[in-house]
């Protein structure tokens, strides 16, 4: 099983950076990139995209409620109920899935993003140590967990 490379990680992070830059005109900063050696503590709102085919695994976008709320406000959204916040995270995950499809080729099967509220901890499923990247946007922290591998 071939491993991922820096470009693959960049692809996922860039999806989120570009999304935030376009919708809020404020680009998030990458603050850390490390390995998930134990269960990770995520944030309240999570979008999960599952990959199969040429790749195997999933990518989790995890954001705190305050961050998502702020994004919606900047988009002049007034409905700030949890369901709407969850939809927003789902949309971000969807953008990520779209970009992945474009870049990783047609042999990649991508699931519809799953939205989860109040995820307690993110467990490694495919990799022993998933890649974790943290972002800071407007003083809020967000996290992307890339737990996937290339099949061939």
């Amino acid at each position, binding site marked *: 099983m071939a*491993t*991922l*490379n*820096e470009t693959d*990680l*960049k692809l996922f*992070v860039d999806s989120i950076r570009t999304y935030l830059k376009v919708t809020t005109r404020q680009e998030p*900063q*990458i*603050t*850390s*990139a*490390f*390995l998930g*050696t134990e269960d990770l503590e995520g944030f309240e709102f999570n979008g999960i995209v599952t990959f199969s085919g040429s790749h195997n695994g999933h990518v989790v976008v995890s954001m705190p409620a305050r961050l998502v709320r702020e994004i919606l406000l900047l988009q002049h959204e007034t409905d700030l109920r949890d369901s709407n916040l969850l939809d927003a995270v789902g949309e971000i995950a969807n953008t990520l899935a779209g970009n992945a499809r474009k870049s990783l080729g047609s042999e990649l099967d991508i699931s519809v993003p799953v939205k989860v509220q109040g995820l307690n901890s993110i467990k490694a499923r495919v*990799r*022993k*140590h998933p*890649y*974790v*990247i*943290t972002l*800071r946007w407007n003083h809020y*922290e967000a996290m992307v967990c890339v737990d996937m591998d290339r099949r061939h």
Partner: protein
Amino acid sequence: MSSVLTANSPIGAAPLKSRQPGKRAASWGGLASLGKYREIIIAVALFLLFDLGVLVLNFYTSFKIDQDTVAINLSGRQRYVSQRVARTLLELDAMRTAGLAYKPETLAELRNGTKIFQMSHVAFREGGTIPGGDGKPVYLEPVVSERGRALEDKVEALWRPYYELLQPLMRNDDFAPGQLAAALTYSQANNIKLLGVANDFVTETQQIGASRASVLRMVQTGGIILALLNFAFILFKFLRRLTTSDAAIEAANEENREILTSVREGLFLLTPEHQLGSQLSSSAHDLFGKTLAPGQDFFELLSPLVSEKALKDAQDYVELLFSPHVKEKLIQGINPLAEVELTVKNRLGQNTARYLSFYFNRVQDGGTVRHLLVTVQDITQKVELKAKLSDERQRSQKELSMMLKAFETDPAMMRMFVERAEVSLLEVNDLLRSTSSATSETQVLKAVDGAYRRIHAIKGDASSMGLEILASLAHQFESELQKLKDSGAATGEALLALPLPLEDLLSKVAAFKKLSQNRSASPALPSPESVLQGLNASLAKLAGDVAVDCGKRVNATVRMGSALDMPADKMDLVREVAVQLVRNAVVHGVEAPLTRLACNKAAEGQVEVNLGRDEGGQWLLSVRDDGAGLDPVHVRRRLLELKWYTAEQLESFSDKQIASQIFKPGFSTAQAASQHAGRGVGLDLVQSNVQRLGARLLLSSNPGQHTEFKIYFAA
């Protein structure tokens, strides 16, 4: 247009294939071209034939018309003469009646007239030469028209008796009056008839002339019409053929253009004068990274891109290809341009390395080589893939040899190593993680420095165990960290590069862990003696290995005897310090054998490592080498190069202050980083561990004699 690919084929079929051997192609070409123009040649010949025919007919008819004119004139003269004869008869009769003598001129006129009438009459009937209007002889053709013959017969009928009656008057002047009377009587009786017939005959000759002129007109008209038709045919044929071949050439050119614009290879012809042909594929410009011009000298183009030797070889090779007696296939294997590395600017204006391959094929005509077809391909990917493949192969060989080495290593040592390494790597991961909560860039850089030190310690540890692959992975990781530090901003995308080598190291260490667990089936701890021996041996071996890599000779004496009494966590820190100081001693302290010999020292340098307790019960680690010592001048110069201080500041520092600089992160006197030195992390790690041990570090050095690091710490 002289097209590269059209060659002899107007429709450009299979233009890229080499042509038929010269002679055959030429003779086929000749026949084909004759066949192609046969119709046109025939049409032109016919055109000339028509023109010639009309010309000949014209001449003939003009000649006939001339003759007809003579006939008209002479028939008119005959009519006139008949009346003159009748008139002279009347004049003679009048002279006779008046009793006058016959005038000789009247008689001469009668005789002359009769003679001319007779001669003309005979000539009109049978053809013959008679005197013309101007007295010169002309040939008169017999009248052949039906009406002409009939009129002549009538003339004959009227003239014959008349002529008979005139004969006596013709012979001499003393003819009888009766003979004159008889002739006059006949004349008066028949003159009108003769005049009428002569008139009709004149009309007839005129009609013959007129009909011939109309025939001439018709012939001329017909000839011209035929010639015009022929001309129109030629024009039509020619135009059609021209249009067809123009269209074929245009189609061929279009195909050539399409081929040249879309082919991925650079294609062009090379003339025997080494100039580029007029047709270049679009890719050729891209491959060379600049616009090429037809007629440009190929070797001038190559010279800035390849080495002098490669250029010379290429010139010789091209010369060989232009020599027809050398077999092309035989010399293809020695093509010096099969793989050429060039530096070209990419679209962003950055220099990038690119590999091109040039292939040369002869374009022959008969026995001579007219051109060389040059095919240029970008084989960068192929070359890179090959290099990658070879790297992978080397890597897997290294891994295999490392695994074998791991088997050779004492399982207990191995287990201790992997445990230490794993803990260190997890520490590094924690440091990477900690950057997310860093409030300033300095904090991030501090974390990066910490990670750097940990990785450097692992590198030293792996080296001392002989696990080169781990050492080189750690070295790569250091490179990534160095890049991050060099970029000045320890945030953003650069961070993304870090977890990947970390994971690689972790997984390798995990593999070793598994291996050592399987091997040491007995859970019993290794004996302290074996651990100690292993530690001593590994440090001595590290010194030897580093020395070999640096081209030096070193004898290391390691006595870490008291290590057994020390707590394990402290021992790990001490070991890391020892590893770094041993590397440092070999790389920076001990001189190269020749230098040592020049200084009257033994070629083999001495490194001594001791761990023990001093009189006060404190721990003391000392690492001493008999090398060049620490040269403050050298350090000052380096500090100036690094621009850490100004010359004035450096002047103001004492030698002691200068010496303390060598422990700062990033300081190294080595010009380029290698696996053993150059990044300036080793002594930084020593400093850091010394702090963690709560130790005191003493550095003593005697230029040209020795350097010694002493570390004291509480038990």
